[in-house]
């Protein structure tokens, strides 16, 4: 029963995933860029820690370095742009075809967003792990490597948390898709979201390294749930009840953004004017 209900959505996810895997050159280029930026960030962090030793500060240098590799590996899981396929469909009027499918319109966009993001993240993450997690230690550069999770529970918390983070990223991408559908233009929203996501998710700098006064606020805002919270769990910086609270916070954001997206989509689609023809 559930299998039958989920069948179209699984198929939509699979098709989008499969389609994106075709673009090998894009994956390699993305990986190259992410290695380059990762290296620069690792160098900056090292200089920062050497200039001003933090002692028993919020995060060790080793964790910050591994954090950087993980953040670079998972960059494609960040909702920093609307799904280009939906953008194209909205602009060309092809979105009309989405409306003649016997599907929940929100669910359909959501699974495609998840398929789009995970298919881009998976090969890049695998390559990044091969380089920063396997090759660097093997050639004696273990100091600069991507280290394993702090403990078995930390790994389990991380797995749950990154799953919630991915769902949240999907919900945010659908919101971006909806903004594009409402405004017929993706440039503004993409331009705004890219720096916002990079900064607030912790990709640019782990949120624990921000000034004290900003930290609480940064922890509860939704972008932290995408990357920073999963990575704090990975490094065992949040454990026990604190870890469970963090997962609950992520789940809350997922529920809020999915609910809000569904409500808005319902409204938007009722007054949608399919262009042309």
């Amino acid at each position, binding site marked *: 029963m559930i299998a039958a209900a989920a069948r*179209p959505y699984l198929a939509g996810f699979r098709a989008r995933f499969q389609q994106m895997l075709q673009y090998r050159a894009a994956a390699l280029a993305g990986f190259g860029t992410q290695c380059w930026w990762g290296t620069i960030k690792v160098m900056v962090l090292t200089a920062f820690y050497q200039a001003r030793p933090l002692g028993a500060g919020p995060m060790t240098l080793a964790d910050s370095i591994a954090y950087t590799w993980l953040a670079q590996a998972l960059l494609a899981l960040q909702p920093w742009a609307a799904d280009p396929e939906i953008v194209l469909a909205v602009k060309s009027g092809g979105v009309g075809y989405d409306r003649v*499918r*016997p599907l929940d319109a929100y669910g359909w966009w959501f699974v495609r967003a998840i398929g789009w993001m995970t298919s881009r993240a998976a090969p890049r993450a695998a390559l990044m792990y091969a380089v920063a997690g396997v090759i660097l230690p093997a050639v004696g550069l273990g100091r600069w490597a991507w280290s394993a999770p702090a403990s078995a529970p930390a790994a389990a918390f991380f797995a749950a948390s990154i799953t919630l983070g991915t769902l949240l990223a999907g919900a945010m991408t659908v919101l971006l898709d909806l903004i594009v559908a409402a405004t017929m233009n993706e440039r503004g929203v993409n331009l705004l979201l890219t720096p916002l996501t990079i900064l607030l998710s912790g990709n640019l700098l782990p949120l624990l390294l921000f000034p004290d006064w900003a930290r609480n606020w940064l922890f509860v805002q939704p972008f932290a749930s995408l990357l920073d919270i999963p990575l704090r769990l990975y490094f065992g910086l949040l454990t026990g009840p604190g870890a469970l609270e963090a997962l609950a916070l992520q789940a809350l954001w997922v529920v809020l953004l999915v609910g809000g997206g569904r409500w808005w989509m319902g409204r938007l689609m009722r007054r949608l004017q399919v262009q042309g*023809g």
Partner: protein
Amino acid sequence: MSQIVVEALSKTYRIAERDPGLLGAVRGLVRRRWRAIEALADVSFTVGRGELVGLIGPNGAGKSTTIKILSGILEPTSGRCEIDGLTPWRQRVRHVARIGVVFGQRSQLWWDLPVIDGFDLLRDIYRVPPARYRASLGELVSLMRLERVLDQPVRQLSLGQRMRCEIAASLLHEPALLFLDEPTIGLDAPSKLAVRELVGRLNRERGVTVILTTHDMHDIEALADRVIVIGAGRILADGPFDELRAGVLSERRLSVDFTGEAPELAIPGVRLIERDGRRLELAFDPRLTPAPELISRIVADHPVDDIHVEEPLIEEVVARFYDLHGASEA
């Protein structure tokens, strides 16, 4: 019993208007003026099961708006529409599971994926049981001659191949009702003929109800038993095409090649269109002067080499009809 009932359907769009030029653009930022566009006004018709109806009209007449409302994409401003007892925009999911739709100007297949992958995805979207899918796919592949294109990515197909795939894609879940919005647009002559043949067979052999919009009047002539003409959002005519033709333009043409120099003819109700050496082009109204009578009068008085009667071109009939109703696009 009617499969489709449409009553007093109206659709008004609101579009932002602005004055031309930079100043107009700036003014538009501060205060926006809206103008209501009436795309459909009081449209009513019914369609019976198994009918093949052509929906024609000039650009911007409301054909596509009608199709979009009937297929559940758009919500009308007012009016009623029931298809097999369902209201398309209220019971959208249940309604669209039972219809097939082709928009000739857009693609429903995944551009980068092979055709068969797109078909398989549609199988899962419509939850078609595997055995039914195999049978339906096999039938459509042979009907549309798709054996050789199934494993090609959609972007590599010619427009004719693509359109055959699009129509197949809309039929995989065996809908009882098919909406075709300009299915022959941009196709070459053989592809047009193929599409027409296919649509005709689906209608005759599978009893699929078809609603078709087109600007190619040969599609209508070849396929539709019934034509609904829409102009400026209103229904202008609804009936068999011959009726439309007779009502608009009963005139026929007669061209005569005389053995010698073409003579002066003075036959009441007959109009001279062109004189070219030994040839005369005449227009006549068959209701006043039947063709056999006219021909025998001419050959009785003059030696004639060749003679033939022509109906006015179908495009002419339609253009004239639009003009008569002031429906041609401004």
